[in-house]
C-alpha cells in the first residue's frame, strides 16, 4: 500500500484527537481574534433598540439541551438586551425537553438585572399544539395560556396587561434548533397576526432560513455561536459565545486542512493508478 493510500485510510481516532486538541487549546489559551458583526445580526439588535420602554417582547426558546452551547448564549444576550431596554418580556418554548433550560435562563438573567417575575417578565413554559398553540395565542393569549409556568393566572399578571393576543406583541424572536421554530412562528403567527419576527438558530439550520430573511418574512437572523458572539459584542457583554469563537475558528481550520489533505492524497492515488493502468 502506497503512502497516499495509507493516509487515506488513517485511523479516525487521530482525527478525533486533532479535533479535540483544536477545541481544547483555544479554550485554555484564547487569542481573542476580532469578530465582525454581520448585517443580519445587527438588524435584530437595531429593532430591539428602536422599541420604546414597556414594549412587549416575546422570546420563544425552541430548542432542547443538545443545542444549548449555540442557542443559550443567544437567549442570554437577547434577554439582557431586552431587560436593559425595559421591555416587557414574555418567554416560552415550543420544545418540551427545553422547558427547564428556558426557565433557568430567563430567571438567571432576570435576577441578574433585578427584574421581577409577573411584573417585568413572565415565563409561560410549554404547551402542546405547536401551530395550534400559536394560532391560539394569536386569538386569545389568556385562553391559550390560562396560567404561567408557576400557576399564576395570566390575566392577573401586570406584564401581560393589555396583551390579549399576539397582535399586541411588538417583537417576537424564535431561537430554533429545528422545527417547530422560526418557520412555524412565521406560518402560524406573523402571517396572520402581523407582528415583527426575528430569528435565531443553530449554525446547521441557518442556511435554510436565508430565504425568509431575504423576503422580509423575518427581519434579522442570529446564526449559531458566531451570531451569538456578534450579539454579545453589540450589547458589550462578552460571554460564552465570544469565548468559544477561537475554538470554532481552530476546528473549522482543522477540517479545512483535513479536506485539503484528503483531496491531495486522493489525486495522488488517482495519478498513480492512471500511470500503473
Amino acid at each position, binding site marked *: 500500500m502506497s503512502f497516499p493510500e495509507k493516509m487515506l485510510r*488513517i485511523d479516525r481516532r487521530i*482525527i478525533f484527537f486533532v479535533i479535540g486538541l483544536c477545541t481544547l487549546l483555544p479554550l485554555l489559551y484564547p487569542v481573542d481574534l476580532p*469578530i465582525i458583526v454581520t448585517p443580519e445580526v445587527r438588524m435584530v439588535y437595531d429593532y430591539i433598540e428602536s422599541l420604546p420602554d414597556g414594549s412587549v417582547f416575546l422570546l420563544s426558546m425552541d430548542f432542547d*439541551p443538545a443545542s444549548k452551547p449555540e442557542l443559550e448564549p443567544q437567549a442570554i444576550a437577547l434577554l439582557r438586551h431586552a431587560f436593559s431596554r425595559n421591555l416587557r418580556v414574555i418567554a416560552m418554548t415550543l420544545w418540551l425537553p427545553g422547558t427547564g433550560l428556558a426557565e433557568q435562563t430567563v430567571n438567571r438573567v432576570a435576577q441578574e438585572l433585578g427584574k421581577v417575575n409577573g411584573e417585568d417578565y413572565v415565563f409561560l413554559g410549554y404547551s402542546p399544539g405547536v401551530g*395550534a398553540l400559536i394560532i391560539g395565542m394569536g386569538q386569545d393569549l389568556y*385562553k391559550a395560556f390560562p396560567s404561567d409556568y408557576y400557576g399564576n393566572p395570566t390575566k392577573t399578571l401586570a406584564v401581560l396587561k393589555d396583551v390579549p393576543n399576539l397582535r399586541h406583541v411588538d417583537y417576537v424572536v424564535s431561537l430554533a434548533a429545528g422545527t417547530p421554530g422560526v418557520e412555524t412562528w412565521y406560518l402560524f403567527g406573523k402571517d396572520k397576526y402581523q407582528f415583527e419576527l426575528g430569528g435565531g438558530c443553530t449554525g446547521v439550520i441557518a442556511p435554510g432560513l436565508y430565504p425568509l430573511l431575504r423576503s422580509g418574512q423575518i427581519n434579522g437572523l442570529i446564526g449559531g455561536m458566531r451570531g451569538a458572539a456578534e450579539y454579545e459584542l453589540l450589547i458589550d457583554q462578552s460571554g460564552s459565545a465570544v469565548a468559544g469563537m477561537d475554538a470554532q475558528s481552530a476546528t473549522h481550520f482543522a477540517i479545512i486542512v483535513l*479536506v485539503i489533505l484528503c483531496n491531495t492524497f486522493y489525486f495522488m492515488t488517482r495519478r498513480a493508478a492512471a500511470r500503473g493502468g
Partner: protein
Amino acid sequence: MTFLRRQLPLVITFVAGVIFTLQYYVPHPKSEILLTEGSLWIQIIGLFALVLGVTSLFHIHAVKIKRQEPGWGYSLILYFGIVVTLAVGLFVQWVGGQHPGGKETIDGAMTAFGWIYTYTMVPLQGTMFAILAFFIASAAYRSFRARSKEAALLLTAAVIVMMGRVPLGEYLLPVTGDITLWILNVLNASVRRAILIGISLGAVALSIKIIFGLERAYLGGGKE
C-alpha cells in the same frame, strides 16, 4: 366497524378541512371564535398524541427486552430512565413538602425532577451533539473529495463558507466574509426558495387529497 374505522374519519377530515380552509378567508367574529376554539381542541388532542407516543415507546422496548433482541440492554436503560424520571417527577417531594408536579423548580429551588433534568438530561444531550463535531471531521476527511466538477464546486464553496464564518478566516483572508454572505444570501437563498416553493405546493396538493379522501394512508392498514 368499517364505518368507525373508515367512513367516520373521512367525514370528520372532510368537514374540518373544508371549514378551517374557508375560515381563513372569513374575518367575521364568529369565524374567529371558531378558530380560537378549534386551536384549543387541537392542543388537547396534541396531549393525547403525547400519551400515545410514550405508550408506544414503552410497548416497543418491552417487546425488545422480552425477546432479548440485539441491543435489548439499551432498551432496559431507557425503561429505567423513563420509569425513574416519571416516578420522581410525579411523587418525590423535595422542596418544602410541595408537590413537584413535573416542575424543575419551585420558588427558585430545584426539585428532584429538576436535578435529574439538569444533571443527566442536559449533559447527556449536550454530549451526543458534541460528538457530532468529531464524526463530521472524520466523515469530511473520508468522503469530501473532488470526484467531479460539481463536487469540486461544492467543496470550494464549503471551504469558503467555513473560513468566512469564523474570525480566523476573516482575519487571514478578509474577502471570505463578504463572499460567504453572498453565497448564503444569493446562491443558497435562491436554491432554498425553489425547494421551499416545491415543498409548499406538494403540501397543498397533499392536503387537498387528504381533505377529499383521495389520500388515505393516515388511516393506517388493518382488516376492514
